């Protein structure tokens, strides 16, 4: 009898060990982000595009997705939760999106057209019970013309825009679908002592952040505010190509570059964003891999066209663009910089064919400056407002000091006005004519060029003069407004891209910027992380990646 008990116990123990085996072998990917906090997890992440990269795309889907599968091609959009979309030819403010069948949220509720309407309302309809004011900021300006949504049937939804806008399908990559059913259950569970509907809704969203539900390849599992967020794989994900093999992804905010580097080198994390540049050789020597690729990002000087600005003369603008030795700057940055030819690069569908070639040609630059009346004895004075640090700003002081020296060879006397990042960012909305410019006639704020509005329209339209948007330099005229209108109303993809190419061509030729650098978004990963594709995009797809034991 005793032997039987021992034998049974031994078998039970062996079975338990076997059962525990897979748990012990859990494949975990730990990521050290540059963000100082966990980006919002309730559907519309903050912390810029790093938020979308780590708590948006992995947990949620949008109607349209960025194609993140190629390292060589510019990313276009592909079907996401919508399988197809079309503008109404009779009323081009209305779009019909056909939804993917059989998709469920992490809580098991089905994804339907009503869910799309609910998610549009969460950021656009102040009277909706689930309106989330703190998600508006990160969303509304990314889809500036979206007005409302209407369910036609379970799998068809109609979106309405305030004006004809061919950019809508691109914009819809930024509206992530959260589960209305799950939110409602959390709303119902809010303490009965809270009676104000807005406070109840806010409490429900806070609870949702701790227990999120989307349709993405990963599901939220553990949230320790400001410290870590853990996601586990969604084995029922609708896209087999993106169904994860990694069991768990852990996000850790590590805002300090040296701390991130130390965390990778000590084996605490498997992947860090933006490693300290001078540590890259050491990181590689330890067997880690550096991934980088030019991002849709521009690090420019945005020039003022306000009365009295030294940049009103196109020869001066062209001279500045020809006088920056970008190859040398690239060396200064350890090679981790892309050399720009415009706001988008040759080969991009919006590139066009500008007659002005952005390059390093100091002789031509000096000739242009002489023609404009400047010389070594009579340099032109320019003042640039920049920041000491900041998201996407790369190494602003070092880089600006380099450009300052470079331009001195072409008769530019550059004064740098270095301010704290949030102050510069706030000033960017106020424009060159505002007193916040402090006499500056150029501003150095980097920007993303993912969609046409962010890449081009907001900088060259008379409709986007401050304080409406970021046309800080007050650049714009009827020609550019017409080019923008043409792009917005060209609904076939090829026509829209052709119109945007014409717009980009004229932007490069008129040079309202000095284009200085593209970020290449370096990230370092342990060699055990496999199947990594670093696209020409701000985002990267974690779902297909692998982790070796």
């Amino acid at each position, binding site marked *: 009898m005793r032997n039987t008990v021992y034998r049974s116990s031994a078998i039970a123990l062996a079975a338990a060990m076997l059962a525990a085996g897979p748990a012990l072998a859990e494949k975990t990917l730990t990521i050290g982000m540059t963000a100082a906090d966990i980006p919002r997890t309730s559907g519309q992440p903050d912390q810029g595009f790093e938020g979308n990269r780590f708590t948006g795309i992995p947990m949620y889907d949008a109607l349209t997705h960025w194609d993140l599968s190629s390292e060589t091609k510019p990313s276009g959009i592909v079907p996401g939760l919508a399988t197809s979309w079309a503008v109404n030819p009779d009323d081009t403010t209305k779009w019909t999106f056909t939804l993917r069948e059989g998709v469920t949220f992490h809580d098991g509720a089905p994804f339907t057209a009503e869910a799309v309407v609910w998610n549009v309302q969460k950021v656009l309809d102040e009277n909706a019970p689930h309106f989330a004011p703190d998600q*508006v900021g990160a969303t509304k300006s990314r889809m500036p013309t979206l007005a409302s949504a209407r369910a036609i049937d379970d799998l068809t939804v109609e979106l309405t825009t305030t004006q004809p806008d061919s950019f809508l399908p691109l914009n819809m990559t930024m509206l992530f679908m959260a589960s209305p059913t799950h939110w409602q259950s959390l709303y119902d569970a809010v303490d009965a002592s809270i009676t104000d509907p807005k406070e109840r809704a806010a409490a429900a969203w806070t609870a949702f*952040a701790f227990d999120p539900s989307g349709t993405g390849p990963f599901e939220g599992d553990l949230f320790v505010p400001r410290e870590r967020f853990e996601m586990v794989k969604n084995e029922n994900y609708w896209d087999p190509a993106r169904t994860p093999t990694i069991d768990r992804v852990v996000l850790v905010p590590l805002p300090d570059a040296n*701390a991130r580097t130390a965390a990778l080198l000590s084996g605490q994390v498997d992947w860090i964003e933006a490693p300290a540049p001078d540590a890259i050789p050491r990181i590689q020597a330890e067997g880690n891999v550096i991934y980088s690729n030019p991002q849709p990002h521009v690090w420019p000087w945005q020039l003022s066209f306000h009365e009295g600005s030294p940049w009103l003369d196109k020869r001066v603008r062209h001279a500045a663009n020809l006088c920056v030795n970008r190859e040398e700057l690239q060396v200064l940055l350890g090679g981790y910089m892309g050399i720009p030819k415009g706001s988008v690069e040759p080969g991009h569908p919006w590139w066009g064919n500008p007659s002005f070639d952005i390059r390093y040609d100091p002789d031509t630059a000096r000739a242009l400056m002489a023609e404009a009346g400047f010389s070594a004895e009579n340099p032109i004075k320019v003042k640039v407002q920049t920041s000491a640090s900041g998201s996407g700003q790369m190494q602003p002081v070092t880089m600006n000091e380099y450009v300052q020296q470079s331009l001195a060879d072409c008769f530019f006397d550059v004064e740098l006005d270095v301010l704290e990042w949030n102050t510069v960012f706030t000033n960017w909305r106020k424009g060159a004519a505002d007193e916040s410019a402090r006499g500056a006639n150029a501003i150095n704020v980097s920007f993303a060029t993912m969609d046409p509005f962010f890449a081009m329209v907001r900088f060259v339209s008379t409709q986007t003069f401050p304080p409406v948007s970021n046309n800080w330099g007050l650049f714009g005229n009827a020609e550019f407004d017409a080019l923008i209108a043409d792009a917005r109303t060209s609904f076939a993809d090829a026509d829209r891209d052709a119109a945007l190419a014409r717009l980009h061509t004229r932007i490069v030729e008129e040079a309202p910027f000095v284009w200085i650098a593209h970020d290449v978004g370096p990230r370092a990963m342990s060699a055990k992380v496999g199947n990594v594709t670093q696209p020409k995009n701000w985002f990267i797809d974690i779902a297909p990646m692998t982790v070796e034991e």
Partner: protein
Amino acid sequence: MLSFILRRVFYTVPIMLGVSLVCFALVHISPGDPLVSILPPDASVELQEQMMAIYGFDRSYPEQFLRWLGLALQGDLGNSIATGRPVASEVFNAVGNTLILAVTATIIGFTLGGLFGFVAGYFRDSWIDKLATAISVIGVSVPHYWLGMVMVIIFSVELRWLPATGAGPGGSSQWVWDWEHMQYLILPAVTMSVIPMGIVARTVRALVADILQQEFVSGLRAKGLLDRGVLAHVIKNAAPTALAVMGLQLGYLLGGSILIETVFSWPGTGFLLGQAIFQRDLPLLQGTILVLAMFFVVLNLLVDVAQTSLDPRLQRG
């Protein structure tokens, strides 16, 4: 004694009111947009105004202050703009984490500082004094940030003995006092203890050396008191000043260290304050500064009471 304590408690009321007013004013006069963490750079005027109204920033400053103060008195410090979470819970979680770090650093710093200072003062001008003084000068002079990074390079990157960042394998919410968690505490606590150790050592050394020169010590020795007895008198005389210095140092430590907590990603008040500043998260910034300021006020009160109980002459003031 009771009336002294009551009087001091009464004095703290206008101090706390002043502190709340100053911390409200400071965060509002600093440049930048309070909604920068949630508004995109190209937010329209309409959207900016809508958000200002939703968060109450469209009201006058006195109105905003009175509303904030009224809620703060009820323990409600509002919600963080950046995260939407209640500020009070954010601050108190951070205070708990900083307490773990600060108390550990305090034990290390005060013990070593007191020991080095006492030995240096007692054996003044000997090689022991010079060694202890050198250690304390290094402690005061070495930048925290640099020391933290050097320790990480040595003990985490090169030797891989201790983790480089974080507050435990599952985060601070799962903190327990076992080796698995305490190994995360060692590097930040030692780094944090170095400055108070140096300051306490220098203070105690000066006090002990000074007291040993005083006539009453000669008197005690003349009466035939043994060294042990003399030491007890020296300690008692040095204690009030040393205590005041330690109280201030403890206050600084409880305030957290933005640099140390950032280097080690330790989720304490300094880390929180740094995030609130960089995100322009005004409710979080106000709430954190208020709670930290209150720490100083309460600590000063406790130190005053402790000093008075050790030296009754102070009651006369």
